[in-house]
């Protein structure tokens, strides 16, 4: 009895302490990044912890916003977010709606054909050759066309469509409604939750994607934001910022941290919506196919 009392008390303390420590490990880097991005040169180069900016200045941001590729990167990223997400939703609806109708033939085979694309991947080189044959290399369309085909998202939407009561659709049919009318008047209006979920999945994918850029696009004016920041942050290409006319350039650390903030801005803006809808979305996604 005594040992179990002792355990009852030490358990929660350990749990609360380790969870708090984890949260600290995640939150601290963001504070550090903001602090260094606004700090003066000497302060930004100082090693150790940074909790708030000292020698406050925003020169790093000014330099960054004067860099033309940040703007073209933002433009290209916004393009793929808008066009890519709309196209993804369109393709997903068009695949899921017919498969959700009980009288559509060959459903099982078609679903298997989709499932196969989830577990087998041609590989980097065949994909590259395909984009080349399709003349999609160095084109903005390479960002949005391939990612529109996602079998996982089709299965999620399919399981949602199937949960819509058959009686509603049967009633519409008796009233003489055709398939398209049923889609626009009954299925889509009832599907807002799954649309928001898949739409947000797609938005986040398009904000963060850079592999397609790395593999298929070499024209710097067509780079997405992630790839522009990747050059600054990871490849250390800082020479555009250390020109001869700039006698006191901001510290490389400030520039890098400012690029992190500039690059994460879209996600941070979306974060409250993501929190609201993503958890539920994961649950929809966990429905066994």
């Amino acid at each position, binding site marked *: 009895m005594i040992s*179990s009392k002792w*355990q009852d008390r030490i*358990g*929660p303390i350990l749990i609360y302490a*380790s*969870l708090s420590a*984890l*949260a600290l*490990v*995640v*939150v601290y*880097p*963001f504070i*550090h990044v903001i602090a260094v991005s606004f700090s003066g040169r000497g302060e930004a180069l100082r*090693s150790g*912890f940074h909790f708030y900016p000292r020698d406050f200045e925003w020169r790093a941001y000014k330099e960054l916003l004067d860099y033309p590729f940040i703007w073209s990167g933002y433009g290209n990223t916004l393009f793929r977010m808008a066009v890519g997400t709309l196209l993804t939703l369109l*393709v997903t*609806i*068009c*695949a899921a709606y*017919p498969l959700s*109708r009980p*009288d*559509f*033939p060959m459903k099982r085979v078609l679903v298997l054909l989709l499932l196969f*694309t*989830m*577990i*087998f*991947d*041609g*590989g980097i*080189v*065949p994909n*590259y*050759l*395909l984009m080349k044959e399709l003349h999609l290399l160095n084109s903005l369309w390479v960002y949005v*066309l391939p990612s529109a*085909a996602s079998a996982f998202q*089709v299965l999620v939407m399919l399981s949602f469509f199937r949960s819509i009561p058959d009686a509603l659709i049967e009633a519409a049919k008796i009233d003489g409604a*055709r*398939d398209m009318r049923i889609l626009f008047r009954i299925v889509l209006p009832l599907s807002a939750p799954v649309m928001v979920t898949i739409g947000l999945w797609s938005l986040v994918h398009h*904000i*963060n994607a*850079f592999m397609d850029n790395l*593999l298929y696009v070499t024209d710097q004016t067509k780079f997405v934001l*992630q790839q522009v*920041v*990747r050059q600054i942050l*990871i490849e250390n290409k800082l020479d555009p910022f250390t020109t001869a006319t700039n006698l006191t350039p901001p510290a490389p650390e400030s520039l890098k*941290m400012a690029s*992190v903030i500039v*690059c*994460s801005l879209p996600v941070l803006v979306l*974060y409250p919506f*993501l*929190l609201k809808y993503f*958890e539920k979305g994961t649950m929809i996604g966990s429905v*066994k*196919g």
Partner: protein
Amino acid sequence: MKTIRKHGELFALFLFAFAFFFVFKYGPLYGVLIAFKDFRVVEGIWGSPWVGFHHFAELFQNSDFYRLLKNTLLLNLYLLLFAFPAPIVLALMLNEVRSRYFQRFIQTTMYLPHFVSWVIMSGLVIYFLSPTSGVVAEIAGWFGQEPVFYMGKKEYFRPIVVVSAILKDLGWGSIIYFAALAGINPELQESAVIDGANRWQRIWKINIPSIMPTIAIMFILSLGGFLSANFEQIINLLNPVVVDTGDVIDTYVYRVGLQQFQYSYTAAIGLFKSLVGLLLILGANLTIRKLSKGENGLW
């Protein structure tokens, strides 16, 4: 024919959608042919001469291949050992927290790294591990350690990949287990408490067995990408100094295939990887179905 006429609109919709899958998911299968050919750009995929299994024979004789295979397998094994169970542990811990407010706070913070790209995440990992300005070196200094260039040490590469992978998706991965835990019948817990079970016993005897089906499904899904070892993460963390331990199949294919134009040879490696991945996911599904007598598993 009658069904097609009856469902003309539905067929049109599906054909439009399936065209995307056909071109972008099945299309690369045509390119896979070059693994059995001596691909020349001017002659195209079909026009290049067949060489049979020549590239595979070359592959199995190349010592590079065994280094890549070893790195890929080890890294994924570590990820499976440490990064796979981490969200389960977090969910079990969160489930023991009574304060709804604290629970929410932890979840809200732990989800954030999931939404940040690997570019940003890797950039921060490199920055925080730097020997001159990094915070990790500062903390190591408190314990009297000399600054170490972590990113330039072969032996640190795998731990760095595993730890950063855990930090990025720990919170996110826990959602599904947390929901599964919330679905456990509270009467089970109550009767266990009445029978005198302590916290540990409840976790081991009730919570973990109850979420086992979820764990099984997530396990199969994670095996699906087994050899793909998060390319986005590794390409950003890798540098020439740590290629010995850090180079995996995908990074090698990217470097040698696309940057040095050895298309056929690297396509063969890629095909080998895809086939092993396919076998793994089918095997895991079969095993789990057998073990659970057909109750668990993806299909």
